[in-house]
């Protein structure tokens, strides 16, 4: 990363300081989390998905495709997938309009629908076009179908002449993914749909966020959702932890590309960013402001611990999860996630006087 000139950094700091003046800690949280986390995370997904779309289109336009080309394209896919994992937990705002997240990722896939539906689509009579893809099931529209094409049986075919329909599907899915990323980014951005502005301006006339607690509550719900997803869906169910039955690695996220561990790592980094707002005054700072210094630091330490436990897992989750050293790291991660969840579900909402999903958690 380029180092900014010192004077510029100083000026920036003064500006940030001045703009923060006169704002309540809650307003600062909304500003900082928006500019330091929400927008940059969406921007990253947009940039990576554009990269992937361009690379896929170039790859498929080639007369002959080599395994080196395929490896390079797989890296692009990993980049876009990482971009997605950065925002996967964000469950408020534009993502809920017309179910964008399902278009990006279909998981877990208990019945191997991805393979079946992708093969059907590729071998079907209908021409493989963007409208046809968008009309079809979400199962074949995004990163999950692309993973199948790039890492499963079709991968070999992509390198031969008979692989053109697979490449057409790959290319169309990449374009579709980029459209979703673009939609999300534009809908958040102040120069587009400005959902960020809606989130940052709570008040009685704001139907979505009638008060600051409602806006901050959406952020906490996102943290809870993201942590629960890792704990339950990315660890317990596929690895058979916590009485979840037998391990079934096919329930792991990205088992075909063996990126399950990396996805968790990126989730944790982005959840920590949503908590801290990077250099800004995020939720971490708000807790300090409410005289909960210890809680604030404890949560930061738990994030660090979860990240280092994840990073210490060697090999892939699907193949190496039962090795002793990995077992211990996975157990540490699992336990740490439980502690983080307790903080975000109970202590933090209680401290801030926030109710999380009253009717959503009712179950009647």
């Amino acid at each position, binding site marked *: 990363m380029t180092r900014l000139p010192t004077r510029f950094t100083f000026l920036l700091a003064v500006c940030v300081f001045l703009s923060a003046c006169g704002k309540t800690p809650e307003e600062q949280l909304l500003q900082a989390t928006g500019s330091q986390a929400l927008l940059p995370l969406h921007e990253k997904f947009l940039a990576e998905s554009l990269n992937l779309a361009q690379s896929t289109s170039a790859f498929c336009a080639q007369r002959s495709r080599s395994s080196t080309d395929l490896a390079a394209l797989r890296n692009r896919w990993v980049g876009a997938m990482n971009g997605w994992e950065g925002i996967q937990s964000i469950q*408020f705002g534009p993502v*809920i*309009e*017309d*179910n964008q997240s*399902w*278009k990006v990722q*279909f*998981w*877990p*896939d*208990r019945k191997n629908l991805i393979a079946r539906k992708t093969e059907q689509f590729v071998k079907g009579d209908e021409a493989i076009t963007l409208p046809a893809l968008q009309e079809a*099931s*979400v199962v074949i529209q995004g990163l999950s179908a692309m993973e199948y094409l790039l890492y499963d049986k079709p991968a070999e075919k992509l390198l031969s002449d008979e692989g053109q329909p697979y490449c057409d599907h790959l290319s169309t899915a990449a374009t579709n993914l980029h459209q979703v990323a673009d939609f999300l980014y534009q809908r958040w951005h102040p120069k587009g749909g400005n959902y960020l502005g809606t989130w940052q301006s709570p008040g*009685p*006339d704001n*139907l*979505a966020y*009638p*008060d600051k607690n*409602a806006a901050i509550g*959406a952020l906490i719900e996102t943290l809870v959702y993201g942590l629960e997803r890792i704990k339950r869906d990315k660890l317990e169910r596929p690895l058979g932890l916590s009485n979840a039955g037998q391990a079934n690695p096919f329930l792991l996220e990205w088992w075909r590309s063996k990126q399950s561990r990396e996805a968790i790592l990126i989730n944790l980094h982005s959840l920590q960013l949503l908590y801290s707002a990077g250099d800004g005054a995020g939720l971490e700072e708000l807790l300090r402001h409410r005289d909960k210094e210890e809680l604030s630091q404890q949560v930061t330490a738990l994030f660090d611990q979860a990240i280092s436990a994840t990073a210490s897992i060697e090999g892939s989750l699907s193949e190496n999860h039962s090795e002793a050293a990995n077992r211990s790291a996975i157990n540490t991660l699992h336990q740490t996630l439980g502690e983080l969840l307790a903080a975000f579900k109970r202590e933090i909402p209680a401290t801030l*006087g926030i*109710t999380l*999903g*009253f*009717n*959503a958690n*009712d*179950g*009647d």
Partner: protein
Amino acid sequence: MTAIELSRRQVLAGALTAIALGAAGTVWSGAGRRIYSAASDQANRHFLCCWAEGHLQFKVPSPGRGHDVLLNPLTRSALYFARRPGNWLTVLDADTGALQARIASPAGRHFYGHGTLVNNNSLLLTSENDYARGGEGLIGIYDCRDGYRRVGEFASGGIGPHQLATLPDDKTVVVANGGILTLPGSNRDKLNLETMQPNLSYIDSRDGSLLGQWQPPHHQLSLRHLDVSSDGEVVVGAQFEGDPTLALPLLFRHRGEDRLQALTATDPVWRQHHNYIASVACAGDAVIATSPRGGCISLWRNGEFQTLQALNDVAGAAFDSKTGTFLTSNGRGQLVQLDQQGLSLTGRVAELRWDNHMEVSS
């Protein structure tokens, strides 16, 4: 968006049925719209509330968390039901909030949170769990004119009866048997998800005889909430307990067909409901369904999906026949109207979280 344009004929049909059923909409002495709902505050204290004209008309402390509310013009009452596995039913004067009666479920039974009125509003029927005898579903019968005294019961037709409603003949009740076995000692745990058998049962309230019973297309589609249109069509909403990656229809309508008719929408629309419908409200050929997990209200017409509106933690839903608009409530204290222009705020009680269901009197 597509507007909710209830035709004059539809509104009129609704009004005429209301007249035929008795003096609906006259539970209180004044004019204007009143909204009734149970609610809780930040300190987890529970209340039975009435809201009108910008503020609370009454807020009566409640023995526990409430669920649905029912209005009875005959006794001018608002009946608030305990949330499962509560054992209380509180009857308040719909005008003043004064206590009219407090009923406890019999020993070995608890309420499921819903009820309906039959026989010119003179009998109250409630969904109950006979947990002392293994969890069979029961419908309790209470005499509204005798202080809501319990006078009988009949089988609900399945396990886990939830919401029930009266058909326009004022005799037949339709019950959503959710199929899920829960027992009071087991912390609301669902004990039979693999074997559950939900159904929609039609029962003659005069003798408890089962007139017909219909199963949803998947045995883990727990039928829970329903409403009946003025022409007797039942719309029932489900909560799916199976594989969460499946996108199954969650709403069905039924009026004499040989199977439940799924409402039609694309996969993404169903997915947006996150396998969970909280309330269903009908008006003419229009229906709305709320999903607090999906944070959305869906509007349907003639069985087909029309539009989706986002609202956080939305659950309560009712139709205001006087203004021809739907009303919804949520866990953020908001009361939100849905009409041709989309959503608009009717009012808010910042310190309250409106519980699952609401009723409107206008």
